[in-house]
């Protein structure tokens, strides 16, 4: 910021100097006009009108202060975006908190967790669940499966196995088909 202010001050000073020199020159020039000596050591090599020569300096000094913050903010924005997007491999090393900060934070967390309301922990869903001893005994004490049901299941399974064994694939076309490659 200080260098920016210094630049602004310097440009203002330059423009003031130009204006003063321009006045002096115009006074001298008027004197010279009387002598009708158009070419001398004070003559400009490039013929630029004085108004045009002087005009840009104040214009620049007038427009520079509003432009600078814009440029500065744009540059800052670009810098920030670049810093955000850069993958900083060097920063990936381990870092540790100060022991005092660490212990203070542990203390704060412990205190806050102690004051927090208890969490309702729902039982996890299970595919198989344990049953109580009485239920287990009741289930085991029940009469077994009836003989008729057992025969029914056995016959059904036998018939299903027989049906599966009779399954055949009948092919009507050649299994290997030559491609029509010349």
């Amino acid at each position, binding site marked *: 910021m200080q260098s920016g202010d210094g630049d602004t001050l310097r440009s203002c000073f330059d423009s003031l100097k130009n204006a003063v020199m321009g006045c002096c020159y115009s006074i001298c020039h008027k004197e010279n006009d009387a002598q009708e000596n158009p070419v001398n050591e004070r003559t400009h090599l490039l013929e630029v009108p004085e108004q045009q020569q002087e005009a840009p300096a104040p214009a620049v000094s007038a427009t520079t202060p509003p432009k600078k913050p814009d440029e500065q903010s744009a540059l800052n924005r670009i810098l920030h975006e670049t810093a*955000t*997007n*850069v*993958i*900083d*491999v060097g*920063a*990936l*090393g*381990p*870092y*540790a*908190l100060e022991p005092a900060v*660490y212990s*203070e*934070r*542990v203390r*704060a*967390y*412990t205190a*806050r*967790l*102690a004051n*927090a*309301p*208890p*969490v309702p*922990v729902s039982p*996890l869903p299970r595919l198989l669940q344990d049953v109580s001893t009485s239920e287990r005994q009741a289930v085991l004490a029940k009469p077994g499966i009836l003989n008729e049901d057992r025969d029914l299941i056995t016959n059904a399974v036998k018939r299903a196995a027989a049906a599966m064994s009779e399954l055949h694939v009948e092919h009507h076309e050649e299994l290997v088909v030559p491609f029509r490659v010349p």
Partner: protein
Amino acid sequence: MVDDLRKYLNHLLEKVNGLHCILITDRDGVPLVRAATDKAPQAALTPNFISTFGMATDQASKLGLGRNKTIISMYSSYQVIQMNKLPLVITFIGSDNCNTGHILSLENQIEPFLKDLATVVAEAP
């Protein structure tokens, strides 16, 4: 709250064969809840080790594939799975032959408790 949660995490720990530790910390590795067995390597429980994930997940999110959610690190004897639940970080440490998919599936079972824990971290100085 902490005791209930610790019991719950211990219960999860028993369910997965070869899982040694479940750790919920902030991004600097300061622990909030911890459930660990004797087999958990002490070096992996220190804030130095865990805080590396906070940096790594930030940088990995810049690779153009969206936000990084989980980093799985396989070592010769251990595997470390760290989940980005910022401001919280969940760290699972298991043996190298532990079922990684089983560990990842625990995320859904821990997720409901993270909201309360996140407020604890957010409110702390």
